């Protein structure tokens, strides 16, 4: 498991260390560096131009990955005058999967190909589902039906010319199968997120941007529960660590305080990362005063992750 990462001079991250849990939830205002942080968690990410370096200046961009029971791994890139970049450090450290699921992409038909892992936008969902065994497809459909009960089954069907797309069956009218264009954004996102547990080979780390997109608050809680099971290895091929970036206070109502990291953009040093002081003696009082709501606690700004604004 990745227990922490230190990032220096990567885009807006001048010097940031983040400790990670099996499930970590990153919150912060727009332009606080969440996406950059998520990108930096993937060892395969390489600074490709001067813009990927702090203030575009020549210098050394470093990432040190702390992995449980292993020596730290360092990936570095040196930008020299003239724009040349020299890279160092191993690439094959762990498999990180970045996801920013896009409903439009999830609806796409696919040219039938053996694909076992979702692309970042989920545009190969039909292929990934089609590659599952019959038993896995039944399990996926059953779990999907539990969360979105208007559907009874999911089936990849051919379109001709080597293309196929997913159809979703009406639970109460079995002869009715819906084209992806007639299925809600949230339903497709739930289906894609449930598919993650069946990927083979499974990723070591899955990073998800805006998990809550189009999801009913109840489903956010259910999906978090599934992801937690993945982190424990209770579903999926192996234990998979998960990092989520979100703007949703509702999502935090389903989180444990220890799982949340609060990002704040600062004028002087780029970005700061804070965790909730859950071991402090008066932590319980703070939670009580915020009426037990982690979402309220975040939006109060008491832990960072909230921008300035116009006052009275």
């Amino acid at each position, binding site marked *: 498991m990745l227990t922490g990462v230190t990032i220096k001079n990567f885009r807006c991250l001048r010097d940031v260390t983040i400790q990670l849990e099996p499930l970590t939830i990153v919150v912060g205002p727009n332009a606080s560096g969440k996406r950059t942080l998520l990108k930096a968690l993937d060892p395969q990410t390489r600074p490709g131009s001067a813009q990927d370096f702090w203030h575009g200046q020549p210098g050394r961009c470093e990432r040190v990955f702390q992995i449980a029971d292993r020596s730290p791994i360092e990936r570095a890139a040196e930008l020299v005058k003239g724009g040349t970049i020299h890279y160092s450090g191993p690439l094959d450290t762990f498999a990180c999967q970045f996801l920013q699921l896009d409903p439009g992409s999830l609806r796409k038909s696919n040219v039938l190909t053996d694909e076992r892992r979702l692309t970042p936008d989920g545009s190969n969902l039909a292929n990934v589902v089609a590659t599952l065994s019959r038993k896995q497809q039944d399990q996926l459909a059953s779990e999907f039906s539990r969360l979105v009960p208007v559907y009874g089954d999911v089936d990849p069907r051919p379109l001709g010319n080597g293309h196929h797309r997913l159809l979703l069956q009406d639970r109460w009218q079995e002869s009715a199968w819906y084209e992806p264009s007639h299925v809600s954004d949230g339903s497709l996102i739930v289906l894609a997120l449930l598919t993650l547990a069946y990927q083979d080979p499974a990723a070591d780390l899955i990073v998800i941007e805006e998990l809550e997109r189009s999801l009913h608050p109840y489903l956010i809680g259910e999906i978090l529960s599934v992801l937690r099971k993945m982190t424990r290895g209770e579903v999926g091929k192996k234990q998979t660590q998960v990092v989520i970036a979100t703007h949703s206070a509702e999502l935090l109502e389903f989180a444990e305080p220890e799982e949340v990291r609060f990002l704040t953009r600062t004028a002087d040093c780029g970005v700061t990362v804070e965790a909730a002081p859950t071991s402090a003696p008066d932590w319980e009082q*703070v939670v009580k005063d915020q009426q037990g709501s982690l979402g309220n606690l975040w939006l109060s700004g*008491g832990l960072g992750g909230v921008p300035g604004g116009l*006052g*009275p």
Partner: protein
Amino acid sequence: MRSLPAPREELAEAHPGAAHLLVRRIVAGAARCRPEAVRFVSPLRTSGGRIVRGSDLHVGATLRKLLAFPASSRRPQLGIVLVDEDGVRSRRDLRTALEGTVVPAALGLATPEFEAWLVADHAVLCAALKINIDPPSTPDSMRPGSAKAYLAHLLSQAGFDASQAQTVRRELASNCNLDALQRIRGFEELVKDRARILPP
């Protein structure tokens, strides 16, 4: 509308209003420090991340949220809640609402009308408005709302617009003789509370 820094960030010198400046002088007097040494932080937000309004301070549960600073290293040493009584709010209610909050010291004060403090020092009032006016009756004897109306009338008479009025209010708070305010109910209680929390 003024731009506020993120919660917990220090307020710039332009941010504090008249009430801040008066409180600063009182606290500095008790702590025997320069007024500038008393600094203010941008307040926490209410539910949904909304910036706090005066009426929010009339709800005990909201008050507790506003003082629930989680990290002790980023917690103000003193929280002062100053609200207009509006005929409904009692000092006892505020004290109960503030009991046991994580801020090391919290004072609650429901004053009949804050503007009564600003008009209490007649000499400073004339100097700030740059006009000669007759001394008012004892400010605390004014009916609720009358001090606010009285100050607004004077500001208008002296030709100040809304933004200039803010400057005048700050000037009054910065320069008024604190002894002249001692006779006003509310102010006297704040000074007593100050003595309890910050013994000289």
